[in-house]
């Protein structure tokens, strides 16, 4: 019988999503770490991402929230974004993986999403600056978490109930990151009504 064919088909789409978001997120974290070095050398340095009164990464990086665990946050990104790249490559190579592997990876993505959402709320409402590289990291983590979680549900990792929900949601999985983006964009426009005109 040929019924095994669809289940062993490699999930190319999700693998590419993991690879692209992982690579872009890694690049953004890397740039933030380089900027951090530049600030150590010269605290007065004007960074390439300091472009307007509101768009400025120096002040975000120097904030307490930028060093939540006592070291610069982008170091976490530098380590963390390697994971989706590795898993994406493994998927292309035909990995099946134990259940715990998918649950653990999904838990990691969830923590990343929580952290990014916290950073978003801090920068917009408390620090009051927008940092382009940081926003690139947010914008990669958000689809990474939502789309992968729904795919993981549809795959059956979280049991049959979640699988039914996941399969129903899978064609619309893009709507979740889109809604998440809109929440961020609308908050930014409310907090910084003049941001577009001062770029």
């Amino acid at each position: 019988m040929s019924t095994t064919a669809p289940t062993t088909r490699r999930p190319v789409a999700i693998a590419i999503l993991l690879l692209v978001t992982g690579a872009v997120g890694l690049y953004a974290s890397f740039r933030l770490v380089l900027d951090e070095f530049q600030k150590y050398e010269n605290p007065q340095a004007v960074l390439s991402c300091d472009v307007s009164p509101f768009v400025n990464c120096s002040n975000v990086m120097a904030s307490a929230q930028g060093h939540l665990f006592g070291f610069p946050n982008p170091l976490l990104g530098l380590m963390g974004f390697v994971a989706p790249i590795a898993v994406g490559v493994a998927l292309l190579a035909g990995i099946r993986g134990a259940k715990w592997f998918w649950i653990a990876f999904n838990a990691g993505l969830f923590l990343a999403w929580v952290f990014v959402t916290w950073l978003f709320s801090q920068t917009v409402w408390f620090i009051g600056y927008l940092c382009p590289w940081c926003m690139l990291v947010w914008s990669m983590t958000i689809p990474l978490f939502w789309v992968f979680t729904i795919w993981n549900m549809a795959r059956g990792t979280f049991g049959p109930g979640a699988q039914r929900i996941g399969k129903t949601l899978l064609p619309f999985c893009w709507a979740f990151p889109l809604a998440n983006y809109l929440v961020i964009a609308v908050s930014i426009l409310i907090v910084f009504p003049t941001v577009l005109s001062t770029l």
Partner: protein
Amino acid sequence: MSDNESKKARRNAARERAAAQRAKEKARKRRNKTLTISGIIVGSLAVVAVVVLVIANSIQPAGPGPKNMASDGIVLQGQNGKIVPVETKGIPEGGKPTATKQDDSVANITVYEDYMCPICNQFETGNMSQIKQWVQSGSATLEVHPFNLLDRSSLGSKYSTRSAAAAACVANYDPDAFLDVNTAFYENQPSEGTRGPTNAELASIAKDAGATNKNVASCITDQKFAGWVADATNRVLTEPLANSSLDKLTGTPTVIVNGKQYNATGTNAWTDADAFAAFVEQNGGAVKN
């Protein structure tokens, strides 16, 4: 027999074709359903985003602007050796500011300032007593535009907005005390990255500086003119500055004398009263002490 076989084959082929047709039809229906639902999702997300933005925008601008600040700034001029504010109406709700009509025979000094900004403070401490003398003697007018560019520097307490709104309260209820309160706000300027005085503390600073009108304190604590501050800031950041060739405001402070922007250079430049006096004289200000 062969006839029978071929009949069967034909029937099977027809059945397969029909099944393929049905499957295709089913896939098409599913695709259409997915597209329809996707459209509904995108549409409703867009509607929600727009509605939230419209509501947020309609909440912000609250009521008319302060009296005596029809140009978004308060104008002070000399009269019989005293400094008096030019009395005007406030900008009506949803209205636009009216540019000040300037008399070119004197030095018209316009200052756009943020009470959080250290350089504005340097300019104030270095030049204000000299400017006051000029205004008193009638050789200059002073127009002060407080705004809120540095709200982000007060850890979420929005000191720039609060202090500018407080200054607007003084312009509205006790305009004669405006310059003294202006000076007092600079004397009590918080460092960048601190929350700054509370509204109640701002009210008591204003009172101690001479704004004794009983409405000033409640106006400051209620932040009556916070909406106006946001509007006025939006205007200077996006629209050409009146009585000048500047397309928009580019920094704090922005000081304009008879249409020309004063750009201090050098380390002590913003406090340098002689340099500023020379600039004023250059630009048609008949400054005589």
